[in-house]
């Protein structure tokens, strides 16, 4: 958790008036400090319910203190603080109050203080204070934004209105929508007004995503698992019966059956593993990953591990990778490896014997550039071919992406199947993925990992012309903190020599 600087600029010299009033404010301040501290501890411990009541109390005191502090800064110091505001007659110690501002800033829950004018004046409802968490979530400034610019949900707006104008506490829930869907419980409470801002309300948001996702996933997991495990299980039971019965003493049949049973058991194990992995990813999907990972290295590692499969099928990889240290992306290394693994695995599976799989990585692309990365006119103009996005990140300025493109020369996919590729257990009709049949979860896993990383996922294909899968992830600084490798300005080719190699293993 980032530490907020206790005082952004050097605190103003306390003037005589500040000294005179300090003792009056002191007791209120102490109460506020204790309560705010207790809340932070409770909230961090995750005891949301117990914390909620106390939190409200603490915020009430702290907010009062914040508003008073600002008045003091204005009165006592020459220049007002950058976030200047309310005139209030009860000044307090600026140092202490700054602590409460920090306490509010540090609170993990998004917290807003909303001020209002008249009930019918929508533009009068403004954000008087938004803490760090709220600013990040709602993309608003610390102070002064229109309330509706931050929050449009009608139920929440109604609850805020009831606190502002009816003096009522309300609790509502709402779903934020968007790719990383989050569920929020929103508490609104009336706050005592100040002379300059007679109507104030406090809005505290609690993240309920974990609970909701858990509920839904338990149901999904059971449904999926029981449905998909039934087939291999039925086959196992069948063979066991046969082995107990008339094939009891037939040695050749027994060996053959045991081999099939072994494969079915493996399939069940893979299924369970993939289902568990998907559940884990879904649980953390709304939490941004913290690590960083070099996409080039990840690709090289996975390619090495796949050597036996390549050799078995006589498939070759053709690489077009930037130099090591050029493609740093923000992400969980294990999960990124899993994405690369699933994509390369698929490409090998669907490649004909002796086919070549093209694996390219490119860097420093804008979102627009990533979305139209190296289209193939032949596939796009084919009668039943096309390209579409399976996952598009929310637009955000200044993010550059590193893209991985995996192209095979397999049977390809018809246009109408493309949107369904990331569905669980979706299988393209009439297509066999070969001996080592997949679980039908590979691309679903890719999609969820990509979504968690705020990346994108594209497919381009035409029947008989192979398939191309692209994933792109937001880039980040290299661990040294220096320039993330060679800059590639879309129009100019890579200045550094890129690694172009071909591995022949057959």
């Amino acid at each position: 958790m980032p530490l907020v600087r206790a005082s952004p600029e050097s605190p103003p010299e306390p003037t005589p008036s500040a000294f005179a009033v300090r003792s009056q404010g002191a007791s209120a301040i102490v109460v506020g400090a204790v309560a705010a501290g207790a809340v932070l501890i409770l909230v961090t411990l995750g005891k949301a319910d117990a914390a909620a009541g106390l939190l409200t109390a603490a915020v009430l005191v702290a907010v009062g203190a914040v508003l008073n502090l600002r008045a003091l800064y204005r009165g006592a110091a020459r220049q007002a603080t950058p976030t200047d505001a309310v005139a209030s007659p009860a000044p307090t110690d600026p140092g202490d109050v700054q602590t409460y501002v920090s306490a509010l800033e540090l609170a993990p829950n998004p917290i807003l203080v909303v001020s209002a004018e008249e009930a019918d004046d929508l533009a009068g409802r403004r954000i008087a204070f938004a803490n760090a968490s709220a600013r990040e979530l709602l993309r608003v400034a610390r102070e002064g934004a229109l309330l509706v610019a931050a929050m449009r949900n009608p139920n929440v707006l109604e609850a805020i209105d009831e606190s502002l104008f009816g003096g009522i506490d309300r609790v509502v829930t709402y779903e934020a929508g968007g790719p990383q869907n989050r569920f929020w419980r929103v508490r609104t409470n009336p706050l005592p007004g100040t002379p300059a801002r007679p109507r104030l309300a406090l809005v505290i948001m609690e993240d309920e995503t974990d609970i909701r996702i858990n509920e839904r996933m338990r149901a999904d997991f059971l449904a999926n698992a029981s449905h998909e495990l039934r087939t291999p299980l039925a086959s196992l039971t069948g063979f066991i019966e046969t082995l107990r019965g008339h094939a009891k003493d037939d040695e050749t049949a027994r060996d053959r059956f045991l081999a099939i049973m072994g494969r079915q058991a493996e399939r069940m194990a893979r299924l369970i593993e993939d289902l568990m992995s998907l559940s884990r990813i879904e649980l953390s999907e709304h939490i941004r990953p913290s690590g960083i990972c070099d996409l080039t290295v990840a690709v090289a590692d996975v390619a090495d591990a796949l050597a036996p499969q390549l050799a078995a099928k006589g498939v070759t990889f053709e690489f077009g990778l930037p130099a090591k240290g050029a493609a740093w992306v923000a992400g969980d290394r294990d999960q990124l490896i899993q994405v690369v693994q699933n994509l390369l695995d698929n490409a090998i599976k669907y490649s004909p014997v002796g086919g070549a799989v093209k694996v390219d990585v490119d860097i420093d692309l804008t979102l627009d550039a990533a979305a139209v990365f190296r289209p193939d006119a032949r596939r796009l103009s084919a009668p039943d071919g096309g390209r579409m996005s399976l996952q598009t990140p929310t637009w955000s300025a200044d993010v550059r992406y590193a893209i991985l493109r995996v192209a095979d020369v397999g049977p390809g996919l018809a246009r109408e199947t493309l949107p369904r590729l990331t569905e669980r257990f979706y299988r393209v009709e009439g297509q066999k993925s070969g001996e080592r049949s997949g679980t039908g979860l590979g691309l679903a896993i890719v999609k969820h990992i990509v979504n968690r990383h705020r990346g994108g996922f594209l497919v381009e294909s035409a029947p008989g012309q192979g398939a191309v899968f692209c994933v792109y992830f937001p880039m980040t600084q290299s661990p040294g903190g220096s320039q993330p490798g060679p800059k590639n300005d879309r129009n100019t080719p890579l200045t550094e020599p890129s690694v172009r190699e071909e591995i022949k293993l057959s």
Partner: protein
Amino acid sequence: MRARIAPEFIFDMSMNEHTLKFFGEELNQLKAEVARMGGLAEAQVADAIAAVSERDVALAESVVGRDRRLDLLQHDIERKSIRLIALRQPVAQDLRRTVGAMKMASILERTGDYAKNIAKRALVISEGEPITPLTRAIERMGKLVAARLKDALDSYTSAELDQAMNVWQNDEEVDEHYNSLFRELLTYMISDPRMINSCAHMLFVAKNLERIGDYATNIAEIVHYEVTGEEIMGDRPKWGGAAREDAADPDLEA
């Protein structure tokens, strides 16, 4: 595709201090009301989709009941816009913002109508046998459309040109979902005639969602016009190229 900033816009920036303080407040008020109406329309769409996927009759009925609020808001915003034009005679960006608010209000009202229509069909669909794979597909498409609407409205409240352009360019995904769903529905209807009633209604639900997706694109166009003073020129990029016309495209209006 980044839009050029019109000279008129630069002129605007220097005029930003309104001679009449009230005028700026009235414009803010208008924008706030459009944003609130947008939030309501968003909630209507989300609830309508949930009513279909969860077979929730009570939710569907409440969506139908709430539609009137959108109608009232639209009239209110139109009245205020006209009043503002008549009394203040805004020019340049102020005029575009006022006209934009009127256009937004009518788009959001129509979005609400489609949501209401989806909710009505949800009532019929929930009477039939559940067809889980189809309702899941509807839900997926619905989430996609709702996310686009959210992005479009976000770009309206923040006046973010790049975000608006992003919404404008990426409507292909919704169309693809619609086409895929269309084929799937046909397959179901052919294989089991008892499904025809539910499937026909789902077809309209999908069509309505597709229209709502188009409205999100229109909102992005309004944002572009409001900020730059220029209309977006040219066609939206279509990845599908020739394939699009050849495919059995059920969208005859396109």
